[in-house]
């Protein structure tokens, strides 16, 4: 029965030649296969992530949303397949990653500013370059708290802000965000969401955002990537083109409401399946 429903996914294609994505593609995923405990989580999964856009990933529980960005960012090894960034491998690509659990992502033995500067030190930048970049970041994030403090002396929202600054410090080509708001209170969520939007408008960095909040997923996104239950495939990709900066008013606009409604329909269809 399963095989009938998921027929197209399971179809065994003889290993195809590499098909580049459409123009403007940043990340190309081809034939991605990942097994968990003998069961396929992803099988022959293809995806194109556009450059300079925010893609929100949304899907049923356990469909491997986080696993997907973890595989792309190299944190989880893949069993088969190919992932290329502008034709380069991960090794030659600068990426940033923001974890859900900021408490266990920052290094408590370093002051906050040293945490943010850490990726630059890894790159072997000298003090002048690091200082200049820190100035830029502090200015663009309009930081109001004391970066000389240790992370554990800051509030959750401040720590997550610092995490995002750290991820952006080396000017990554892609920024991955794994449920970056779900450990924060509502006020902080709104604040950081706006910061993220500002940063995106400033830098145009390609972003992949895993979210469990549909409103947030649509609000930030250019594309909403809706996934099916496992073995995971693409249920639908919705485009949402309202101009930025988006505001509270955006939330009640027809286009936003329609995209959100459509996402919810697809999501419910997939969950019930």
């Amino acid at each position, binding site marked *: 029965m399963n095989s009938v429903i998921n027929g197209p996914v399971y179809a065994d294609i003889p290993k195809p030649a590499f098909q580049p994505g459409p123009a403007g593609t940043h990340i190309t995923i081809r034939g991605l296969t990942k097994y968990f405990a003998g069961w396929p989580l992803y099988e022959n999964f293809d995806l194109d992530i556009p450059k300079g856009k925010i893609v929100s990933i949304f899907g049923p529980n356990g469909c491997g949303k986080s696993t997907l960005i973890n595989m792309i*960012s*190299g*944190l989880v090894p893949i069993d088969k397949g190919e992932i290329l960034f502008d034709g380069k491998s991960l090794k030659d690509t*600068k*990426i*940033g*990653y923001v*974890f859900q*659990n900021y408490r*266990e*992502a*920052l*290094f*408590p*033995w370093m002051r906050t500013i040293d945490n943010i500067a*850490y*990726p630059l030190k*890894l*790159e072997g930048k000298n003090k002048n370059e690091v200082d200049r970049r820190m100035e830029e970041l502090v200015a663009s994030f309009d930081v*109001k*708290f*004391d970066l*000389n*403090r*240790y992370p*554990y002396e800051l509030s959750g929202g401040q720590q997550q802000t610092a995490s995002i600054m*750290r991820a952006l410090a*080396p000017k990554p080509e892609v920024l*991955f965000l794994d449920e970056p708001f779900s450990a924060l209170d509502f006020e902080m969520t709104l604040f950081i969401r706006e910061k993220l939007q500002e940063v995106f408008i400033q830098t145009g960095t390609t972003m992949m955002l895993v979210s469990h909040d549909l409103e947030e997923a649509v609000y930030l996104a250019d594309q909403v990537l809706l996934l099916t239950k496992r073995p995971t495939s693409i249920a639908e990709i919705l485009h949402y083109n309202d101009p930025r900066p988006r505001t509270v008013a955006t939330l009640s606009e027809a286009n936003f409401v329609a995209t959100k409604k459509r996402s919810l329909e697809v999501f419910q269809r997939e969950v019930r399946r």
Partner: protein
Amino acid sequence: MTPETSSAETTAQAPWQSNDTAAYAPTQQRFDWGKALPLVGPVVLLLIWDLVVRFGLIKPILLPAPIDTLLTLINGMAGPVLLPHFWVTLERTLYAFAIATAVGMPLGIALGSNERAYRSVEFVIDFFRSTPASALIPLFLLIFGINNINKVAIAAFGAFLIVIFNCAYGVINARKQRVAAAKVMGASRWQIFKDVLFWESLQPTFVGLRSAVSMALVIVVVAEMFIGSENGLGHKIIDAQQVMNVRVMYAAIMAAGILGYALNVLFLALEKRVVHWSGR
């Protein structure tokens, strides 16, 4: 932290501070009984001790009055009766501890960062960690003979096993996400080791160091008692007991207790300073 950071904060957090002082002001005026709580135990203990002796429930030849004992302790620590022994025991303990740390910490961290290597020696470490170190004294006597080195060596051995175990587990149980964070930023294996794993292991390492120094003291005192020793608190205790000089015996026991307690407090303070993020 530093004066300059706090001054930077005052402008932003002015209302906070005034709230704080307002809330705590009333309690500061009264005597804080909470602070006296730790004294209750020792005072009650001394009181019971005194009453037991006063009413003759235990013969004075087995248990001298607390005042006499404390005086003997103070006089002993001020003069040749206890002080030289105290120093010798402390010296041996610290030597043993230093050797255990110098060997155990690098080895533990190295084993911890290679889990396969650790698994292959885990049984040996666990076995000797579970063997009472005092049971090995005769073996060490055979190897090192009856001398000072023997006492330090056996204490170092016991402490070493604790250090290596805690360091290795500290590295093995490092928060996976911090390692992942460093990895995703492009850190090499060596950079992950020195920037993340080492620091992550510090807290469990300090727990290990604290138990190790206690273990070293225990073994040193036991060794001083039974390995033909001429000095040390262990020697003093057994010596006083042999001639039924109970006051000195109790005083020496207390001196050993003070030494153990002081070492523990010292290491706790050191841990708080070095691993300042612990528990936050």
